[in-house]
């Protein structure tokens, strides 16, 4: 792709802007990125500071926490306002889900996801589209270190990244849905502090399932491979998963702000 978009700088000062239509983020994409970047530094520092923390640091931490916890919505309200993660990168374009900015929508992806969400302070991966295929960039730090070998990334972290990289390969081709099966093969250690590149493509698909596969390359060595089968959801399936969660806390089935809140779905009902 010839776009000047730098995936690492999206929604940072001086970087490309990509609209994120999630209600909690839209209109404050840049400010929220700034907040998350700062919290990433805090998360990294806590690894090495816990027992040495001065009283002053603890007090400032509590103040910040008090401020932000006041802004937490009730869980039912949060879920009722959630939109499909497809809803990013603008509208009215010719992307597989009508995105105006396909590459931007991939970089933002599931904006608060644990593996690639730029708005989640624990996520290690940045996704991008390179030559028409999904690529994930990561340089794993201390947060992702396996304990049995000081230099290695934990296999579970690698698997978590593959889950989203494969899912995003599907999405690039207009298919979206939860994981049905994920197989990750560790071939060699993935090292801490060395840039990695995940690559993934769709292998085949049918009406309700799509299969993708990928690999992780570090220093020219393939350290892991993965293959995943994913459900192809339609809008009914997406709404069913949302209603499933709402049923945990709500006693009445009502429709609120365009989304269902209520107890009318059980686990087995999710298509």
């Amino acid at each position, binding site marked *: 792709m010839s776009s000047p978009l730098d995936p690492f700088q999206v929604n940072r000062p001086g970087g490309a802007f990509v609209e994120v239509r999630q209600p*909690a983020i839209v209109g404050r994409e840049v400010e929220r990125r700034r907040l998350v970047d700062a919290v990433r530094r805090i*998360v990294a*520092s*806590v*690894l090495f500071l816990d027992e040495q923390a001065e009283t002053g640091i603890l007090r400032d931490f509590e103040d*910040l926490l008090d401020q932000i916890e006041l802004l*937490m919505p009730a869980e039912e309200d*949060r879920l009722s306002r959630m939109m499909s993660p497809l809803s990013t990168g603008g509208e009215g374009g010719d992307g597989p889900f009508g995105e105006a900015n396909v590459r931007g929508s991939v970089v933002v992806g599931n904006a608060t996801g644990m593996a690639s969400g730029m708005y989640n302070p624990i996520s290690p991966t940045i996704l991008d589209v390179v030559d028409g295929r999904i690529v994930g960039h990561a340089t794993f730090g201390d947060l992702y270190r396996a304990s049995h070998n000081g230099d290695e990334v934990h296999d579970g972290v690698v*698997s978590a990244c593959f889950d989203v990289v494969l899912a995003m390969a599907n999405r690039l081709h207009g298919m979206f849905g939860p994981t049905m*099966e994920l197989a990750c093969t560790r071939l060699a250690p993935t090292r801490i502090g060395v840039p990695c590149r995940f690559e993934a493509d769709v292998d085949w698909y049918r009406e309700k399932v799509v299969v993708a596969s990928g690999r992780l390359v570090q220093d020219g060595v393939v350290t892991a491979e993965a293959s995943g089968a994913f459900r192809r959801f339609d809008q009914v399936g997406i709404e069913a998963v949302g209603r499933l969660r709402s049923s945990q806390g709500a006693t009445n089935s009502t429709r609120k702000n365009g989304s269902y809140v209520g107890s009318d779905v059980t686990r087995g009902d999710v298509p």
Partner: protein
Amino acid sequence: MSQEPLADMVRALVLAVVAHETDAAGTDELAEAAEALASRMEVALLEVAASGGDGTHAQGPHLDPRLHPVTGVANAFAAPLVDGAESGGIVTASGTFTVIHEGPPGCVHGGAIAAGFEHIVDRAEGRTGLESGPRTVTIHYRRPTLLGVPLRFEANLLDAGAYAEGVDAEGDPGLVTVSARLVQDGEVTCEARAERRIRAGATRTPEGRGG
């Protein structure tokens, strides 16, 4: 305040950062406070280093269980899961995931589940002395796994005799397998199988490697 004051607070902070709702001006105020706190913590880290210490990790960070990415209480990437004692040939790890690890709305991210399985398989293999090495873990996601509801990963320990012979339960030479499952509210929501090819007799003293 608990024994892990900063660890508890950082997990709460990450959760709040992911889930909170405020306008641009409010977000900017929070960002400013977070940047100031981050800078202060980084200075404190430099002071620890300058005093000749290496933080809390006298034996190196990789040996501190508090930092483990699946079970470490001081690692915000972790739920954290809590390892259970081995019982009846099964090892377990339990926990409750929050919005930090959300995949489909209200459900645990498939990647978080994958990380949990890699950990429990690691424990099962390690208890029988199998060295870390190439392996495939295949996970079948049967039902949605919900946020906010306690769950438990379980894995069957390898049969030591079969392992020594390099065969699995079906007698396939050179193939060693571990089966595992994820249980929530009495239901199995996911199952997993780990497979490795090993040389017969390639054992070492069982001690657990802890992932």
